[in-house]
């Protein structure tokens, strides 16, 4: 049975380096259906690094569409393929927005905790 302790611990463990955020969009041919189907049946989490590994093994055709590195201090570095379509870039930007929203929300949690301690 899960417990509150475990839940809090899990959240705490997940909070690692929030200072940078990286969103990367690839395009290519995916031939990993077997892997995707098999793992949930085993009730295991899928790992994107496994997928990438398999893509490499299969010699799949992959290309980088866009990559954005956003730092907490506001610095942002972006790579955009000149052949990327507007639709692909829109999707990429939306994912970046969502990821930023999540990171910021968690940072606010931490701020709340810190300010609570300070108030004490």
């Amino acid at each position, binding site marked *: 049975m899960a417990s509150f302790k475990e839940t809090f611990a899990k959240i705490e463990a997940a909070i690692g380096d929030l200072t940078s955020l990286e969103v990367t969009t690839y395009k290519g041919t995916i031939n990993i259906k077997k892997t995707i189907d098999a793992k949930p049946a085993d009730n295991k989490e899928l790992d994107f690094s496994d997928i990438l590994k398999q893509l490499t093994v299969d010699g799949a055709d992959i290309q980088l569409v866009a990559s954005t590195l956003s730092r907490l201090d506001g610095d942002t570095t972006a790579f955009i393929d000149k052949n990327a379509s507007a639709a692909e870039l829109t999707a990429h930007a939306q994912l970046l927005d969502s990821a930023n929203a*999540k990171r910021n929300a968690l940072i606010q*949690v931490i701020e709340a905790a810190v300010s609570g301690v300070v108030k004490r």
Partner: protein
Amino acid sequence: MQGAQGEEDFAALLDQATSAGHLPDPWQVVRPDLRDANRANSDLYIRALRSRLFSLGYTDDKELKLGDLTPVLSAAILRFQSEARLKPDGWAGPDTKQRLQQLVSFEEEQDPEGWDIDEDPGDLPAVQRAAYLRLYTLGFMDWEDDAQALARQPSCDPVSNPVAREALRAFLALAQKLGLVAAAPAPVLSVPVLRLLFGHDAMIRALATRPDFIADDDNQKFIDAIGRVELWLLDYDVKLAGGDNTHYRLAASPRAAAGTQRVDAVQDALSDLRQRFPKANLPGPSGGFLIFGRSLKFSSQFFALTNSLNNAHEEDAANEAEVEDQILAAASSKADSEDIIGRLNELASRVWDGFKRLWGFLKRLVKAATIAIKDQVWRIARFISARARGAFEFVLKAIEIVHRGSVYLRSRVFPASSPDVAILAFGRDFDVSFFVSQAAAFEDVRFIVDKDAEETHFFVAASRILSALVGIILEVVKIVASNIAGWFLLLLALSRIAGRIKDLVEAVGSIDADSLKTFDTRDAALFSNPVR
């Protein structure tokens, strides 16, 4: 960090309360069946819901013994919603719960004008059932005649149901006699008639001043029925509507026959009230008392007492900081502290037992249980009773969100991903990898991106709740030093959480209920309910 320690303490307290059964287990396994996506997730809530629907004849007593959401209960919810002019979605959310409370509860929502029903309430089959139930419980039906039981009625409308009509006519005549109305209105469920029928407090107030009415032979069945209701509301274990009130308890002396003795629950309760409220001058002895030459159980003094319990301390709860200060002050003396802990522990086992009494009943219990003890304790209990239950429901939702939100913090592939379209994966610290298939249609890709945006709302909500929890953790840790009973701290924390989460609930409430369903059946139970 102090906060981390506080978090651990708080988590341990929550876990302790869960394992002790004071809080339901939020991780309780529920079937990830999306057909039942609107399931209520709290066992306590389901039991209370089932009890209410049973009272109105929407389920049978076999159903009462079950603890989970069943197809029968789902069908009953749908039918009730349909008959109460609520959105028939099978989701027994706050609106459904409130309407059930309005119709079944004795002490709350006594004015039908406040029920927020657009049409004439008496036209609603659910209201007709509630009126029938009320008439039955108050003694205007033949309790011995099984054919008059609510569950046997094809329609409860007094216009078409002669039993209901005669009962309503008898009630209205009695209401006139009691002085609640100048002239008995026609036996139809108009708003003024419903106001009389559901105006429980007005009846009690009138009975408190009418010993002659109480002594009248013609009124005895009603007096007995409403007297039982009052005892039941005070949490005495009496049966309503003519139920057998004989029970057995261990005899005081082991030499007594078979070690048990027969007890009349009503007499037992009255005897207890006499002891607890000596100033109320309840007539005795326990076998009844003589008035106008008749032996009666219930007296005008009895109704005066219950009326005073009902009306005592109706003002709003004091602000949280003030109550907390009072708790700490009260706990500073060992004797007072022990008294508080003893009283509250006694209360604790009942607070979360929603089966027999739902929330409104607890308020009376609290009043009755604490009226004779120290004022501080009463204030504490009142504070808890006013806030904790509502907060508790918020907490269940908060836990769902926090737990669901934490899923994002694992390295995983977004459930909507498909190799033919796109794979969206989250790394730790929110890094995102997005792999789009060369052959994918853009609208399919867009769907996945939009779903991620939608679930981002949940994560943001989860984080806000977590912020609230963190704040509470810190405050709870501060109070722990005062050494009050652990579960009580939990109640305090829960009651405090209500205000903090209110704005969050509003924010999340704007998200459409359907969007809370997830793609992954493993997590289906977590977000299968709308958060309001």
